[in-house]
């Protein structure tokens, strides 16, 4: 008997686990990543000659619940048409019964990779604000992401910001007008109480306790606060730290009521205006005004200096 080498065995494993796209219009190019529920492949859409990202369930031995979740994820994303949310192009079933959906292939870097680059604080804040806006849009449509973290946010090659991986999203109200989602909610197949959903460093205390029925928009606000803290690290000003603290308050009622409110406070921070999260003293107010009107202040100072110069030079 001849033993197979580890390399050959791994190669065979890869071939077996690779999805069979032969019955679809897609051609597998390479695997992009793998998560708990499925793997994402870079594939070529042979009809439109373009690259797409195809998410496929990990295993062909799928339960109805997994199938349901996968279709639900595709429908949730498809229902959220926003520049900050990756559009879904197609959904279908592979010959082995695995569900897949095709979405836009985003070229760029993940937020955690972007954060390692030498990017200014204001640029980081602008990207973060775009994330808040996409999440606020989802909230307005009754969808809570529940797993916001830098690894689930992409910065495209043109600077566009996209929120990914809506696999564990919770639909608060059936504003996505599909029979499936209505059916899903009515059948109460959502995550049961006690199930912990999310990523430890970014999940709200109520998520960590598995209180799924208590989770609302403010759980995502907490995660956004954690993302902001990650993005700014040592670069955070006192005001930015106050925004993080308010977003990450232990009690949901002490947080920003919505991602839109958090986005608005980031906007105020960028415009050097007072933010909701921080009550500044008189010196800080003056400092902020001077910082905002630096050029005007410099002009007036130059004028006064010139005046003093003239006083001393024109004396007889």
């Amino acid at each position, binding site marked *: 008997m001849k033993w197979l080498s580890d390399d050959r065995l791994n190669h065979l494993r890869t071939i077996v686990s690779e999805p069979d796209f032969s019955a679809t219009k897609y051609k597998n190019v390479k695997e992009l990543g793998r998560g708990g529920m499925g793997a994402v492949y870079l594939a070529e859409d042979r009809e439109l000659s373009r690259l797409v990202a195809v998410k496929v369930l990990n295993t062909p031995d799928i339960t109805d619940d997994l199938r349901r979740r996968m279709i639900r994820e595709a429908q949730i994303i498809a229902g959220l048409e926003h520049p900050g949310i990756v559009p879904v192009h197609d959904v279908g079933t592979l010959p082995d019964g695995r569900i897949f959906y095709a979405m836009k292939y985003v070229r760029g870097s993940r937020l955690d990779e972007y954060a390692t680059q030498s990017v200014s604080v204001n640029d980081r804040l602008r990207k973060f604000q775009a994330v808040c806006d996409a999440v606020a849009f989802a909230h307005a449509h009754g969808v809570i992401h529940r797993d916001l973290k830098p690894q689930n946010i992409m910065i495209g090659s043109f600077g566009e910001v996209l929120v990914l991986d809506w696999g564990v999203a919770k639909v608060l109200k059936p504003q996505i007008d599909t029979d499936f989602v209505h059916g899903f909610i009515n059948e109460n197949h959502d995550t049961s109480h006690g199930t912990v959903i999310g990523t430890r460093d970014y999940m709200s205390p109520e998520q960590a306790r598995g209180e799924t029925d208590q989770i609302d928009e403010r759980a995502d606000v907490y995660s956004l606060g954690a993302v902001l803290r990650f993005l700014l690290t040592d670069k955070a000003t006192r005001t930015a730290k106050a925004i993080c603290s308010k977003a990450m308050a232990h009690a949901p009622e002490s947080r920003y009521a919505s991602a839109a409110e958090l986005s608005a406070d980031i906007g105020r921070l960028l415009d050097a205006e007072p933010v909701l999260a921080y009550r500044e003293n008189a010196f800080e107010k003056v400092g902020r005004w001077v910082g905002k009107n630096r050029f005007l202040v410099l002009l007036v100072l130059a*004028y006064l200096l*010139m*005046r003093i110069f*003239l*006083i001393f030079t024109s004396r007889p």
Partner: protein
Amino acid sequence: MSKPLIGVILGAVLGAIDGLTAWFTPAVRDQLAGIVFGSTIKGVIAGIAIGFFAKKFHSLPIGILFGVIIGAFLAFLVALLQGGYYLEIILPGTIVGLIVGFATQKYGTPAATANS
């Protein structure tokens, strides 16, 4: 706040400061009140002109240039009436025009457009 109003306030304040500095020139100290009044009026006139210009034309470099020209021109007229102190009057007047030109372009409510 409208742009002409910003121009008037800034022109008046800087004009008054401009006039008050005459206190450091002993030869004209007894005429200080008149100088401050005249300088303030000059600042107000410059502020109105530069403010209305900013309301019509939205361009930072052109606004600053206009401010410099108006400031220098009015200061020149004052120096001409004084019959001296050209540098001491024209230089600060020009810089006041520059500051007001910059401020009126950068701050204040712009004029409403036809389709807004």
